[in-house]
């Protein structure tokens, strides 16, 4: 399979996954499944801003959803989920558009990104753009003016995927809700502050202070092993509060890491120069990619084996993609 075919199929599966997730979160679409996990809204937004460049309808419905539900979102976390300049530019464009639709200080876009000298098309395949959206143009992207569809709804708080929103309604938008989400969904018996910091996108010191406060309030338990403080949540008590059995709590996925890795693979596979590179350079570039994502994938429990042979690098990448997609149930299916 050549890289462009792999890229197209990969993109299709990511688009289908994003539709399935957002449909359960209030975006205007019919849910095709019931995801068993708690989603990370900001990680999914930054991911979708890239993935939906191949699906303008998804992109525009996402923006409509964000407009309806912006009070449930953390701008700070949106920025923390960005892994590169493209993420920062896309996020700046989205925040700029939201701020124009609903002027609020927290949506202001100061210092987010500088406008690029030349505009690049936002969508992968679109004809000439006669009139440009100025908020997206300010972030360097060319697209027609975006108007809200007003079709989005608030997330169903009882759906497993929406646990993050429910906790934000209870604990407020911020580090407490994120820490509790991780502690309630993870399979690990305990979590330390460093892991929670990586999972939530907040600084370790802030996570530590928040956990200390929640421990003092007796809604989390803390124990010390060696020099390390470990944290655990009383799942039965939290489940009772949420009106479910402990075994009905949603499961955990390391969304920031998984979705960042998928985004990097997608961007790598869409580089047009891959088609004209020598076989070796293409393999070497794939090796760069694998080395970049291996830390995130290891954090998410997906090992990467790198053999010292350029001939096998591309097949290793292709073989790695499948378990990552299976982890998020993004199996092959028809795109809407």
């Amino acid at each position: 399979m050549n890289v462009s075919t792999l890229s197209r199929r990969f993109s299709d599966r990511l688009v289908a996954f994003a539709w399935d997730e957002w449909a359960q979160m209030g975006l205007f679409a019919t849910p095709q499944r019931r995801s068993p996990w708690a989603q990370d809204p900001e990680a999914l937004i930054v991911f979708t801003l890239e993935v939906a460049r191949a699906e303008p309808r998804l992109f525009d419905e996402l923006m409509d959803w964000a407009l309806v539900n912006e009070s449930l979102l953390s701008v700070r976390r949106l920025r923390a989920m960005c892994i590169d300049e493209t993420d920062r530019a896309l996020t700046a464009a989205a925040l700029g558009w939201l701020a124009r639709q609903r002027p609020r200080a927290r949506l202001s876009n100061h210092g987010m990104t500088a406008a690029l000298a030349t505009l690049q098309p936002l969508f992968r395949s679109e004809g000439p753009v006669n009139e440009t959206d100025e908020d997206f143009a300010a972030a360097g992207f060319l697209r027609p003016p975006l108007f809200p569809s007003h079709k989005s709804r608030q997330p169903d708080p009882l759906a497993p995927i929406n646990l993050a929103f429910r906790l934000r309604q209870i604990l407020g938008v911020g580090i407490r809700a994120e820490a509790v989400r991780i502690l309630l969904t993870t399979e690990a018996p305990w979590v330390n502050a460093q892991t929670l910091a990586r999972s939530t996108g907040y600084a370790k010191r802030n996570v530590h202070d928040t956990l200390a406060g929640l421990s003092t309030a007796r809604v989390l338990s803390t124990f010390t092993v060696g020099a390390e403080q470990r944290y655990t949540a009383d799942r039965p008590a939290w489940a009772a509060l949420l009106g479910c059995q402990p075994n009905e709590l949603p499961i955990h996925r390391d969304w920031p890491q998984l979705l960042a890795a998928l985004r990097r693979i997608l961007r790598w596979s869409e580089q047009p120069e891959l088609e004209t590179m020598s076989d070796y350079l293409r393999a070497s570039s794939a090796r760069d990619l694998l080395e970049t994502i291996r830390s995130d994938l290891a954090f998410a429990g997906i090992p990467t084996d790198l053999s010292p042979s350029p001939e096998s690098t591309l097949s290793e990448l292709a073989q790695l993609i499948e378990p990552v997609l299976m982890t998020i149930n993004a199996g092959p299916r028809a795109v809407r």
Partner: protein
Amino acid sequence: MFDDRIDSALAAEDLLRALGDQLAAHGERYTLAIVGGSALLALGLVSRGTRDVDVLAIVEDRELVSAQPLPAALLDAAHIVARDFGLSDDWLNPGPTSLLDLGLPDGFYERAQHRVYGPGLEILFASRVDQIHLKLYATVDQGAGKHLDDLEALQPTEQELIDAAHWSRTHDPSEGYRSVLARVLAHFGVDDERLDP
């Protein structure tokens, strides 16, 4: 094929082509003069494996200049190739470049075999005759082992050994060197009396 060793002419070619690709991809271009086991492999003169590629010199306007230290861009490219092929980071090294200090055999550049590895890399492989010079010197200077094996594989004629011996003495005119040189020549059935003018 690699396993931290360059074990065939094909493997040596693959490595140099990869190095050339990396250099070209970063807008760099170098011409290197290569000696040692990898050069012998690439030219099909020996079949033993080697762990490194010995850079004798960087070639600038037909001038051979010291490869010590290797330029940063060349090192960066070599490190990527090392990663991709599972080689040690110093697989490309300027180990023999000090040979330039006392001079190479006359006509080295003209005899060298030129090969181009894309727009980023051109290699001058030391010719068989020059490899005999260098291998004889290395055998006497550093001891037998792989150098003597290579020298035997090159099947030098008596005259080639005498010419190489004369040249090598310009690098080390000591009596100690001469006595070891005589033993090595004797190993090849050459009378050391031919060393004297």
